């Protein structure tokens, strides 16, 4: 019997070894993968037990911080500026995150592998673990100007400002917005109520229009059409005469295209210098140019400006701006003037101007300047990257001249914002897109300034804003002015 008992002992030993090995795996190796499971309440709540890193603008304004809290969690997230920075920071609730809070979560929470060594040192030296701070490229003055201008207008829309030379995002505002502080509540019931209210709000305050909203670009797309023209026919100059009929019957249709109010283009002779047609934003001229260039050429150029790219992140994900291949010549004409199925994000709108401002080189937009650990050592720095060479330098110079004419020439659609009025040489393009949905059209404006040595490019889209020049352009001008003041240029 003892032989059997000894064998039973061995079986027992094997059972306990299995248990010990399994427990070692579970508690020694599996925690990291289990902590990342979406429904792991403990792992999620754990991040409220120590201080999360701050989110700071490029000019040192703290826009998200963790303050000591006196409920079951040690810290509570606090957003000093509320809705103004909501599209940038996003929110950090008990259950979910958005914006930078989500994109840089592992660094902000301190769980990133890049911080492991520091965390161990903190543990050994008895210091409280603290997440890394994220410094953004946002300029607080430009951001405030953008958001306040949107609030003053009171229509849904968004503004994005870029540094054309680097791709740094200087401002990113969306309206209507929401106060992320209500979502930082630790009371589950309160949080659910606030969340439901925001989700069901018809005004869609949670939508970050700057990156996630797509709207027809309208005439701002003529930047792409012109770029394609200059690229395809290098002999074309801004003063080359082009066909500018007052009315244009589209091929294979009875549809007659005319300019906004049926007015003549240029002097009405049917031939106008390109720069005049661009400044006046003649639809007939560019519809005709578009048909001559053909859809593939337009598509190619649109993609060089960053459209049709589903994978762009800044590091927040950006919705794809679409140039859909038109199935007919008539629709190619529409697509050349930013109608048909063309849609762009406000960021894309800013990228049009940024590429032209930077001599045709489109820089990859980015929002995070650098990440610093709690001991102020740098953990990550975003390096600038070229997204694409949209056009050659001479083409960019030509298109830039025409964009300047939009603002500086009396026939230009944005003449109201000429240098003698604003004090800054702005080059831009207005867009007024027929949406076919609301009585008022979407207003768009893309611009850069100062002409000659640009340091800011702005894209604005206002839903139902009407004319680009009257609804969108004033907001862009305010952002430019605020940024120039902040730089000390004015």
């Amino acid at each position, binding site marked *: 019997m003892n032989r059997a008992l000894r064998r039973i002992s061995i079986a027992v030993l094997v059972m*306990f070894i299995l248990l010990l090995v*399994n427990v070692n795996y*579970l508690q020694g190796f599996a925690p990291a993968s289990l902590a990342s499971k979406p429904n792991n309440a403990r792992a999620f709540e754990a991040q409220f037990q120590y201080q999360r890193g701050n989110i700071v603008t490029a000019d040192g304004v703290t826009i998200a911080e963790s303050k000591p809290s006196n409920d079951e969690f040690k810290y509570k997230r606090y957003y000093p500026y509320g809705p103004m920075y909501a599209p940038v920071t996003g929110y950090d609730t008990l259950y979910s995150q958005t914006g930078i809070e989500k994109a840089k979560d592992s660094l902000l929470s301190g769980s990133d592998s890049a911080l492991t060594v520091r965390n161990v040192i903190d543990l050994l030296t008895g210091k409280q673990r603290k997440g890394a701070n994220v410094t953004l490229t946002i300029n607080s003055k430009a951001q405030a100007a953008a958001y306040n201008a949107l609030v003053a207008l009171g229509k849904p829309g968004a503004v994005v400002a870029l540094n054309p030379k680097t791709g740094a995002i200087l401002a990113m505002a969306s309206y209507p917005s929401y106060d992320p502080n209500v979502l930082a509540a630790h009371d589950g019931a309160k949080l659910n109520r606030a969340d439901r209210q925001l989700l069901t709000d018809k005004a869609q305050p949670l939508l970050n229009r700057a990156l996630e909203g797509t709207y027809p670009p309208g005439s701002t797309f003529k930047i792409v059409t012109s770029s394609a023209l200059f690229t395809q026919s290098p002999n074309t100059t801004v003063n080359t005469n082009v066909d500018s009929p007052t009315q244009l019957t589209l091929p294979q249709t009875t549809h007659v295209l005319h300019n906004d109010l049926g007015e003549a283009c240029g002097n009405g002779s049917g031939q106008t210098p390109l720069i005049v047609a661009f400044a006046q934003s003649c639809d007939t001229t560019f519809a005709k140019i578009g048909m001559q260039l053909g859809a593939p050429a337009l598509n190619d150029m649109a993609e060089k400006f960053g459209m049709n790219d589903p994978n762009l992140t800044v590091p927040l994900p950006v919705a794809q701006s679409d140039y859909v291949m038109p199935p007919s010549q008539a629709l190619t004409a529409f697509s050349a003037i930013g109608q048909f199925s063309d849609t762009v994000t406000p960021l894309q709108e800013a990228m049009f101007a940024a590429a032209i401002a930077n001599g045709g080189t489109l820089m990859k937009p980015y929002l995070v300047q650098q990440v610093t650990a709690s001991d102020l050592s740098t953990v990550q720095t975003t390096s600038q990257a070229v997204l694409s060479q949209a056009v050659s330098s001479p083409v960019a110079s030509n298109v830039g001249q025409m964009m300047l004419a939009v603002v500086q020439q009396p026939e230009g659609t944005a003449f109201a914002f000429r240098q003698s009025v604003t004090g800054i040489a702005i080059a831009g393009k207005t867009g007024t897109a027929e949406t076919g949905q609301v009585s008022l059209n979407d207003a768009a404006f893309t611009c850069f300034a100062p002409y000659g040595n640009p340091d800011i490019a702005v894209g604005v889209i206002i839903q139902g804003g009407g004319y680009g020049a009257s609804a969108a352009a004033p907001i862009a001008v305010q952002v430019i002015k605020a940024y120039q003041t902040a730089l000390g240029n004015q």
Partner: protein
Amino acid sequence: MLVFAFALIVFAMANVGFSLKGRLPSGVAEYLVAYLVIIGAAHLAMRRFAPWADPLLLPLATLLNGLGIVMMYRLAAQVNPARGVPAISASQAALQIAFSAIGIGGFIAVLALIREPRVLQRYTYTLGAVGIFLFALPALLPASISEVNGAKIQIRFGSFTTIQPEEFAKLALAAAFAGYLVAKRDVLALAGRRVLGLDLPRARDLGPILLAWAASLLLLVFESDIGTSAVFMGLFVAMLYIATSRTSWLLLGFLMFVAGAVAASKLVGHVGERFDIWLHPFTTVNAQGNSYQLIQGLYGMASGGLLGRGLGGGQPYITPLVQSDLIISGFGEELGLAGVMAILLIYGLIVQRGLRAAMSVKDPYSKLLAGGLSFMLALQVFVIVGGVTRLIPLTGITTPFLSQGGSSLVASWMLIAILARISDSARRPPPRPIQEEGLTQVVTLK
């Protein structure tokens, strides 16, 4: 050693108090004094009734029981913020002390009444009948007083107290098996044919194993209690093997259990669901529903990591049933890998001391009983800890000494008492031989 075990419990209790309330909470002293008194009684009883018993058994059991009380106290002392109430009430935690007292009463009673393990052999068939009756009782009673969480394993008295008769049935049946097998082991071991290198038993000797198999299937089907069924089957097969030393019994028993379990998993929804939870716990449907409990336990243990979050520092209240079936996940969360390994090693030591007693005792009945009970304890720990840590499908059985609940605690203490009794008779020095006549007696004169 007993003092050391008690000191550990005092320390753990104080740790809970400081961690949750920032000071030594009131009521802790009463808990500790009460526990000290009953442990002291157990110690004195062992000195009196079983002086040669293995000295490790009582301290190890004391430590486990004490840790269980600490965890009950800890769970009752912290409110679950999502529900507004603690995982168990303060009176339930206090009840655990009362059950410990009853358990140690059972321990003392077994030591005092059973002075010689072989006495039990006389009652083989009586114990067998009692065991089967206790097993079958909840299945026969209406669901209103016997069903809990889909398993019919309890008898409810009033609104508060329940008894799980199976905990006692296992002990009674172990004793009955031992008696039966000691009587029949020669015929079971020697008769039969040899096929493919295995000694197959005769058909008529298959009777008892078929009976045990039927009983465990009955458990599975009528009481939906897979865990106990597995422990029960394992106990019986292990005892058959110890008695006969024939591998064919092991294989036969194992195959029959697997066949029964597979059939049940197809036919009985409750059983099939267990397998699904085990294999696919993280699918969206399961994670929100059937496997919620399992994965919350896993998350808890994962959050404990190597060293744990400290007693009172974790959130064990998130895990459903953390006070009973999933208590090991509570320990894993707060004491970490180190604590769980320590607890497993304590169980391992108890089992090892039991098997050691089985090997050294001379009487075959005691050998069989000690071996069977030790193996049953090991198997029970394996089934529940393996279930909670997803080594095997999770089935709801108690964790000996740690889980909330009186029946398991009392039965576990009785099991320790039987092991102590057998180890006592194994280690007792032989009686001094009576002086033989004819030898010269040396008388010292002053």
